[in-house]
């Protein structure tokens, strides 16, 4: 899933300066799962904003709403009656959701309440970790199912750097060395031959460097 973290409250309040009536819009997708952008988060954030603005003697009217997904025109359409009636929308979706809203509603300012942080998963409730950098050229078959792009701090392709020590990364002793994990796994799988071959330099066009990416299912385009 896409993991997002709520922005600092002061930053959110600054975005809303000058607005008297806003919609705080949650997303029922990934950010609900990671507890930062769903219905509950909308309720909590809206209350905080109301209280802060009341305290300042500058009350704000907030409409609370959550849609199934903000990255889908079908669900984004569901708030078309509300948007013209507010000064601004504070979206609690990931960056994709915020932009789908901004593209659909061009007359209304759209603000992000979250920082979209990474693609990952939850190892336990409330504890999320990065696993994929969406490089567009999956290498997991060569690396024991552990991603060198996402798990190595330098995204190295041919083994650990000299900063790897006792299985940890030089950036932080609490961060596992991705390559140590890969090597341990390959050894367990009896696939060390996959490490011994030199991985060629990456083609970063499939990552972000070839410009914004698209994925088109031609069979659905009729």
């Amino acid at each position: 899933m896409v993991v997002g973290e709520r922005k600092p409250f002061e930053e959110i309040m600054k975005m809303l300066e000058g607005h008297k009536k806003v919609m705080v819009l949650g997303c029922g997708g990934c950010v609900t799962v990671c507890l930062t952008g769903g219905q509950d988060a909308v309720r909590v954030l809206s209350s905080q904003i109301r209280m802060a603005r009341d305290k300042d003697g500058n009350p704000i009217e907030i409409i609370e709403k959550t849609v199934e997904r903000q990255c889908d025109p079908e669900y984004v359409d569901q708030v078309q009656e509300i948007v013209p009636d507010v000064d601004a929308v504070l979206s609690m979706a990931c960056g994709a959701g915020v932009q789908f809203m901004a593209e659909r509603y061009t007359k209304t300012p759209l603000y992000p309440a979250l920082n979209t942080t990474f693609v990952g998963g939850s190892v336990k409730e409330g504890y999320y970790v990065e696993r994929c950098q969406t490089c567009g050229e999956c290498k997991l078959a060569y690396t024991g199912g552990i991603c060198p792009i996402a798990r190595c701090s330098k995204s190295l392709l041919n083994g650990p750097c000299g900063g790897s020590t006792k299985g940890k990364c030089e950036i932080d002793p609490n961060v596992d060395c991705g390559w140590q994990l890969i090597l341990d796994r390959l050894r367990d799988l009896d696939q060390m031959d996959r490490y011994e071959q030199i991985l060629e330099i990456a083609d970063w066009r499939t990552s972000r460097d070839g410009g914004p990416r698209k994925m088109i299912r031609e069979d659905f385009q009729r």
Partner: protein
Amino acid sequence: MSRFKDALDSGKFVVTAEVGPPKGCNLEPLKHHIGLLKDRVDGINVTDNQSSVLRYPSLGGAILIKEMGGEPILQMTCRDRNRLSLQADLFFAYSRGVTNVLCLTGDAVVVGDHKEAKGVFDLDSVQLLDAIATLSEGHDLAGNPLDGVPHFCKGAIVTPEAKPLEPQLLKFEKKIEAGAEFIQTQAVYDMNNFRTFMDYARRFEVKILAGIVLLTSAGMAKFMNKNVPGIFVPQNLIDELAGAPKGKALETGINIAAKMIRTIRDEKLADGVHIMAIGKEEVVPRILDLAGITR
């Protein structure tokens, strides 16, 4: 042509030393260090934004060494440049007579003094070695022919005291497969451990220069043991430094370095040594004198 490569091929005991460029544009101290070293060693390494701390560029330092009549070894990390920039800098280096390159991954950006910067790592150290080999075949990484082909003597590093060691050894083998002609090791202090490493490394056709990092105090030794991955200073050396009379720890460190160099040379443990005095370049000639290395 590379004088350093000739020295490696000659079979003699090869000595290299490291200099660090300034934070800024004042080259006088660097020139002074180069002047002290250039006629005493077979090659002078110039560090490349070492520890991710911004400095005058290694390429500038390497050209300066060349201009002063020394033999530069250009340290090149993958942290700050993508493949266009790396290849362009290699052309520049070669066109100015800098013909030796040490290929490094580079420290993580966040350990340095510009923590907010974007780390590049378009290539890794193995791929950089491979890229230099590609250039010497007359084309760039995109397959385009070159007008003027660089032929570098290329090297890499290994950490013989890494814990665990095996991942580093496997990478060492990849570096040799990718064309490394010489290896300068991370600091070694425990000669028994180093012997074990060399028993393994001797199986490969590559010249190995043992890394000698000058110890300046017991505190520095303890700090490195705790904080620098892949460095192990044995307790007896720490005790020796701690037992030095007040103000004489550096002197003790110089003696330790000289003694290690003698051991490595006399026992033919490695093909040479690479001396890293880290800010104390002034004393390198004395280390060489005490080690009996004269030119």
